[in-house]
């Protein structure tokens, strides 16, 4: 029983990081209505950025988290401002192709720069764990989860209380209305994509503490992010977080109780159930 509790706690903590990662995808879709097929690749870029900065500056990944998020924010801003904005009026399949092209280019660039080997970050506390009433809590996983919760809270505060955050929400609610009242929608789109990329940047740094990075890791995480946001409801921030937790826990529980190699199957099973019972997702708005 105690082992099962351990597994569920680990699933919850991992789910928090999944949630932050999926939050980026959800924010971008919720406002810009574009599906970011390069999401996983941006995550891998963030992981490599954290790795390189850790090796050159010797700083802890937690201290690097804001810096990497900022770098990804700027990259995302430029990508939307210079490239994706030009595709906004085009058919959706053009947008898909554009972002798939971006994802392939990012993977190839990472392969050229870092090679195919899996790389990891070495921190002093990598093997530490806390014991709480017989339950073992992995220190790295717990810190990563705290970072994810902190990042999500900061994002919520930004959208709730800042002027730009409110403007972005206005764009998401009614794009034409936002233009009518004089909001610079294209700039706000760029800021939104930057914020989404920043979320990916922050979660990439945290995820590097849990898994090794290699260029081909991206596709799996793009798929995972899609599962999470569809379960939670496309465009919903609390939905993305809840979706992350549900996927983390369902993977952990099914892997432990049934068979570990089937754990991904249960994420898809959860997705199918949600699509059947509540097609707009747990927190999604009806069309």
């Amino acid at each position, binding site marked *: 029983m105690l082992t099962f509790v351990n597994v569920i706690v680990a699933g919850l903590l991992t789910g928090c990081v999944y949630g932050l990662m999926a939050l980026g995808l959800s924010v971008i879709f919720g406002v810009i209505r574009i599906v970011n097929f390069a999401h996983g690749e941006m995550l891998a870029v963030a992981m490599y950025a954290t790795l390189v900065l850790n090796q050159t500056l010797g700083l802890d990944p937690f201290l690097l988290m804001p810096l990497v998020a900022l770098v990804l924010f700027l990259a995302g801003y430029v990508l939307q401002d210079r490239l994706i904005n030009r595709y906004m009026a085009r058919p959706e399949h053009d947008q898909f192709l554009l972002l798939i092209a971006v994802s392939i280019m990012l993977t190839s660039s990472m392969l050229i720069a870092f090679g195919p080997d899996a790389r*990891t970050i070495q921190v002093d506390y990598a093997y530490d764990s806390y014991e709480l009433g017989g339950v073992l809590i992995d220190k790295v996983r717990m810190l990563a989860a705290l970072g994810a919760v902190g990042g999500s809270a900061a994002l919520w505060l930004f959208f709730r209380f800042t002027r730009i955050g409110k403007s972005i929400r206005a764009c998401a609610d009614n794009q034409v209305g936002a233009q009518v009242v004089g909001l610079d929608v294209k700039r706000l789109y760029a800021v939104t994509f930057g914020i989404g990329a920043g979320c990916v940047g922050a979660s990439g740094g945290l995820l590097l503490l849990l898994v090794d990075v290699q260029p081909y890791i991206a596709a799996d995480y793009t798929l995972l992010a899609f599962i999470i946001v569809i379960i939670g409801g496309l465009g919903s921030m609390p939905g993305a977080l809840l979706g992350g937790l549900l996927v983390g826990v369902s993977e952990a529980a099914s892997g432990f109780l049934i068979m*570990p190699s089937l754990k991904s199957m249960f994420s898809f099973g959860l997705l199918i159930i949600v699509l059947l019972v509540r097609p707009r997702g747990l927190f999604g708005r009806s069309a």
Partner: protein
Amino acid sequence: MIGRFSRREFGLGSFAIGASLAANGFRRARAQTTALKVGILLPRSGFEAQIGQGCQRGFDVSVPILRDMGYAIELMLADTESKPEVARVQAEKLIDEGANLLCGAWDSGQTAAVAQVSEQHGVPLVINIAADPKITEQGYKFVFRNFPNAPMLMTGALSLMRDLFETTGTTPKTAVLMAVNDTFGQAAQNAITTLVPKLGIPFRILDVVSYDPQAKDLSIEVAKAKSSGADLHLAVTRLNDGILMIREMVKQRYEPMGIISPGSPGFYERPFSKALGKYAEYAFSHNAWMDPNQPLTKIIDAAFRKMFPNDAFDLNVGFSFEAALIAADAYKRAGSTNPEALVEALRTTHLAQRVMIGDPIRFDEKGQNAGNRLASLQVRDGKPTVVLPVVNAEGKPVFPVPGWSQRG
């Protein structure tokens, strides 16, 4: 029935025979100066990239050494991207581009795909590493494997475990098996669960935990293995998952008597020790290994250090070199790139000068070399050290192993 030959007929006949002999002789002489085109199929990218590149180094180092030995081969490289479907396409591409013989492909699933292509096109395949027994059980005529298959590996590895327990005077009563869920992992898992009772191995397997070969987190799998309460942890892994597994074992304070990898990669590889440091120490790997006393091993070791000073000379290198040697030797004896001639030469292979521990390389009627022998390796001071059999041992085995917190 026997008619008389006229002088003209006799003259023409003699000319034809002479011309044919001369042409054969010319072809033979030309074959020895023209390099054999060997298509190398390896997972040089994707999740098996590290090991694929290790094998590639074995083929790379073989070219100058084989040239000095009087052989001539030319490598044609292809990346299987760690995917069987890509391996199949790449094998066809290499054959279209003129490969006379194929070598590879390290992974059983990818090798099985390449073997089908090889058989369909009638181009010989020399398998460097791949253990699924089915590959040589299909009745293929063009497929030859120097590497021990999974039952051979597991029989050797389990027999060595018995020797290990006898030598150290400690016998675990129970074990848990964690195995990667791919072609090789499944073959190994079946072989272990069948052979343990059959070979009279003194422990009972309490649980088998199989996992996705591309898993990025093994916390659940390790928790499940820990909950079995077994004395011994058996691990059929690749490289990255082997690292992930040990990390999780440390975090979850899971301390069995020992961790033994029967016949699978991972623990003996340099990145394993580099990534885990003191936690890699004392991990056992029962596997085919290089014979340090063979002159050829010493030559390769020296050349390898020169060409790849930052990489390890391990069994991936050794078996890949031997695959190239087998191909080059068959070509030399066949005197032709004709596939039938190459296959005939491969069937009669007898290479006493080896790199790996074992009898001379020979192939049985199924194309399998049954003469490889295994060694028990234990990571000591960051290096795989032979601890059994005693005749080849470089050190004494430590079993049970010290707990995680008791290490340096």
